[in-house]
C-alpha cells in the first residue's frame, strides 16, 4: 500500500513529464536544466514526512489530501484586478504591483519608479536581462534539499523579478500583492528573485490574499541577494483564507555589511509553512528576523529558520511569537549554525508561545550549532498562558476580562510590530493585528476582497 505523499509524488512526476514543453516554453535552456536537477533531488527525497526532523511538527498529509488543479499556462483569468482589489492603506504611499495565481499581473502600472530599479515578471527577466538573471537565478535554491523548494524549481511558471542597482535608494515602500483567484482548488507555484545592489536600499511589503473561498496550495520560493552595504526591509502579511495552504521559502544571501529586517505576520491561512534560510556570507552583515502568528480553529503555522553564520562579525536576531486559540497548532523550528571561522558572531533566537485553550498546541525547537569559540549566542523558548496577575490587576481597575486579555495579547504582539517602518505602515499593521485578535479581520475595510 502506498501512502498519500508517495502518490502525490508520483502525480507530480507525471505532470512534469506530461508538461515538459509547456514548463520550459519561453524560458532559456538553463531553466530546463535547473528543473531537471531539482527533479532528480525530488525523486530521491520525495515529499517530506513527519519522520524528517525539519517537518516533524508539520504534517503535509493534511494539505496534499486535497485535489488541486495545476495550471501551467499563463494566468487563467483575465480579470480586472483594479476593480476587485483596492488596498486601503490610504496614507500609505507605495509602488504597488500584483501577481495573480503565481503570474505577474500584466496590467501592473509601475509608474514613476525611480531610476535604478528594474521590476518585471520573472519570465520576462530571464530573456530581457539574461546576464544578471543567469548569474543569480537558482543559485541559492539549488543547494537546498527540501523537496518543497525543489518542487518549486520544477514547476514555477512566473513570479516577480526585482533588481535594485548599486547606490539606488528607494524611499517609498514597494508593495507586492499576491492574489489567488480560482473557481476550483488550485496549486500555485510562484518564484521570485530579488537582487539589491551595493549601497542600495529597498522596503518591501508583501501581502498574500485569496480572493475567493477555493482552496489554494501555494508554493513560493523567493531568492534574495543583498550585496555589500545593501539594506532591505521586508514585511509580509499572510492573510489567505483558512481553506488554503502556503508553503513559503525565503532564501537569502547577505554580503558584507548588508542589513535585513524581516517581519512576517501570519494572520489567516489554514496551513502556513515558512522556511527562512539565511546565509551570512559577508562580514558585519546583520539580520533581524521576526514572526508573529495567530492561529484559531484548526490552523497550523510553522516557521522553520536556518541562519548560517559563515563568516566572522555577523549578527542575527530572531523573535517568533504565537498566539493560539481553539485547536490551532504552531511550530517553531529554528537553527543557528555558526561555522568554525565565524568568530565574534552574535546570534540570538527566541520563541514565545501563548496558548489560550487546552487544545491548542505549540511545538518549539530552538537549536544552536556552534563551531567557533568566541561567540555570543542564546536561544530560548517559552509557552504559557496570559499572565493571571496582570489580568487580575487590570480587572481590579475596571477593565473587563475580554478587554484585559485583548490588551495583553496586543502588547505581546506589538513587540514585533514595533519594528515596522514607516510609521504609517506600523500603525496599519497594528490595526490589522488588533482586528485579527478581535476576530473580525476578514478583509481590509475598503477592499472587495474577502480574504477569509
Amino acid at each position, binding site marked *: 500500500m502506498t501512502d498519500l505523499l508517495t502518490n502525490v509524488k508520483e502525480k507530480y512526476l507525471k505532470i512534469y513529464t506530461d508538461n515538459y514543453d509547456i514548463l520550459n516554453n519561453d524560458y532559456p535552456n538553463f531553466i530546463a536544466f535547473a528543473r531537471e536537477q531539482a527533479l532528480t533531488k525530488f525523486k530521491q527525497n520525495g515529499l517530506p514526512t513527519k519522520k524528517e526532523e525539519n517537518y516533524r511538527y508539520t504534517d503535509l498529509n493534511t494539505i496534499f489530501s486535497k485535489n488541486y488543479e495545476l495550471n501551467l499556462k499563463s494566468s487563467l483569468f483575465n480579470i480586472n484586478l483594479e476593480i476587485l482589489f483596492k488596498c486601503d492603506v490610504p496614507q500609505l504611499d507605495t509602488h504597488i504591483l500584483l501577481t495573480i495565481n503565481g503570474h505577474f499581473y500584466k496590467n501592473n502600472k509601475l509608474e514613476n519608479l525611480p531610476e535604478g530599479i528594474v521590476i518585471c515578471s520573472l519570465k520576462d527577466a530571464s530573456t530581457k536581462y539574461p546576464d544578471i538573471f543567469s548569474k543569480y537565478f537558482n543559485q541559492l535554491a539549488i543547494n537546498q534539499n527540501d523537496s518543497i523548494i525543489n518542487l518549486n524549481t520544477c514547476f514555477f511558471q512566473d513570479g516577480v523579478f526585482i533588481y535594485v542597482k548599486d547606490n539606488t535608494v528607494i524611499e517609498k515602500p514597494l508593495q507586492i500583492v499576491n492574489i489567488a483567484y480560482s473557481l476550483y482548488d488550485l496549486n500555485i507555484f510562484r518564484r521570485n528573485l530579488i537582487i539589491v545592489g551595493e549601497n542600495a536600499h529597498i522596503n518591501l511589503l508583501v501581502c498574500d490574499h485569496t480572493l475567493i473561498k477555493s482552496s489554494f496550495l501555494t508554493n513560493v520560493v523567493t531568492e534574495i541577494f543583498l550585496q555589500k552595504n545593501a539594506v532591505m526591509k521586508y514585511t509580509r502579511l499572510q492573510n489567505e483564507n483558512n481553506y488554503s495552504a502556503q508553503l513559503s521559502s525565503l532564501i537569502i544571501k547577505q554580503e558584507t555589511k548588508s542589513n535585513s529586517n524581516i517581519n512576517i505576520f501570519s494572520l489567516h491561512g489554514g496551513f502556513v509553512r515558512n522556511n527562512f534560510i539565511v546565509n551570512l556570507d559577508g562580514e558585519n552583515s546583520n539580520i533581524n528576523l521576526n514572526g508573529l502568528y495567530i492561529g484559531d480553529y484548526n490552523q497550523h503555522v510553522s516557521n522553520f529558520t536556518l541562519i548560517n553564520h559563515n563568516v566572522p562579525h555577523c549578527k542575527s536576531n530572531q523573535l517568533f511569537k504565537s498566539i493560539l486559540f481553539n485547536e490551532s497548532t504552531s511550530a517553531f523550528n529554528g537553527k543557528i549554525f555558526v561555522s568554525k571561522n565565524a568568530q565574534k558572531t552574535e546570534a540570538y533566537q527566541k520563541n514565545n508561545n501563548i496558548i489560550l485553550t487546552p487544545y491548542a498546541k505549540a511545538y518549539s525547537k530552538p537549536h544552536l550549532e556552534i563551531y567557533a569559540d568566541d561567540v555570543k549566542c542564546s536561544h530560548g523558548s517559552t509557552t504559557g498562558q496570559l*499572565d*493571571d*496577575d*496582570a489580568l*487580575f*490587576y*487590570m*480587572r*481590579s*481597575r*475596571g*477593565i*473587563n*476580562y475580554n*478587554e484585559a486579555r485583548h*490588551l*495583553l495579547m*496586543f*502588547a*505581546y504582539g*506589538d*513587540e514585533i510590530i514595533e519594528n515596522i517602518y514607516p510609521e504609517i505602515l506600523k500603525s496599519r499593521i497594528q490595526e490589522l493585528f488588533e482586528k485579527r485578535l478581535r476576530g473580525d479581520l476578514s478583509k481590509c475595510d475598503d477592499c472587495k476582497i474577502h480574504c477569509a
Partner: protein
Amino acid sequence: MLKIENLVVSVDGKKILKGINLEIKKGEVHAIMGPNGSGKSTLAMVLAGKDGYTIEEGKITFMGENLLTLSPEERSYKGLFLGFQYPVEIPGVSMVNFLKTALNQHRKYNNLPPLSASEFLKLMHEKKELVGLQTTLTNRSVNEGFSGGEKKKNEIFQMAMLQPKLAILDETDSGLDIDALKIVANGVNKLRNSDNAIIVITHYQRLLDYIVPDFVHILYKGKIVKTGDKYLALELEQKGYEWLHSEETLKS
C-alpha cells in the same frame, strides 16, 4: 458601606481567614494590622475578587449588594479599589492606554460617554499633581521599570483617577522611604472625604501617623482579635506582636 460577616476563607484547603467580622461606614478609615501570615492580604484579595480563594462561610455586603457574586471589574465599577502590595508590571501596555480603558469602562458602566483625549490628559495631569506623582507616564508601560516608591505612588494615582467609594490599601507603606511615605499618605488624605472609606493594611504604626485611622483592628491567625482606636496601634508598636501571642496563651 461594607459589611463582612463571619468570613471563613481557605486557600488550597488551608484555612486562612477564620471568621472575620467587620463593618465599615462611609467617612471612616480603618487600619488592619497584624503580623506576617495573619491573613491581611488574603482579606484584601478576597475583597477585590481574585481567584484561588475558597469562601467556606460567611458573607460580604458592599453597598447593599452581595460582593462575592461580582466579578473584579464589577466590584471596581461599584466603587471598590485595591491598592496592591505588589503592583503588577505589564510590559507593552502603556499607562495611558491602561487608565483610559479603565476609566472609560467605568464611564460606560455609568452610562457616560467616553472622555475625549484632551479631557483625559487633563484629568490625568490634575490627579498626578494631587498625589505628587512626578513620573512621566506617557510612553511608559504599566509599572514597568518603576521604582518601589513610584509603583506605590502610582497606586494612589490610580485611586485618584477612579475615585472609589472604598479603597483598600494593602501595605502601601512597604518599601517606601520616609519622604515617599509622606507623599503617599498626603495623597491618600487629599482623597479622603465624608463619602468614601479607606481600609489601610499595614505592619507598622508609622503610616498611621500620617493617615490617622478611626479604628484599628488587629488580625491575628485569621481572626480580628482586638479592635480599638488609633492608640491601639501605638500600644501594639510598643509591645510587639509577641504580646498577642501571650494574650492568646493566657486566654486558653
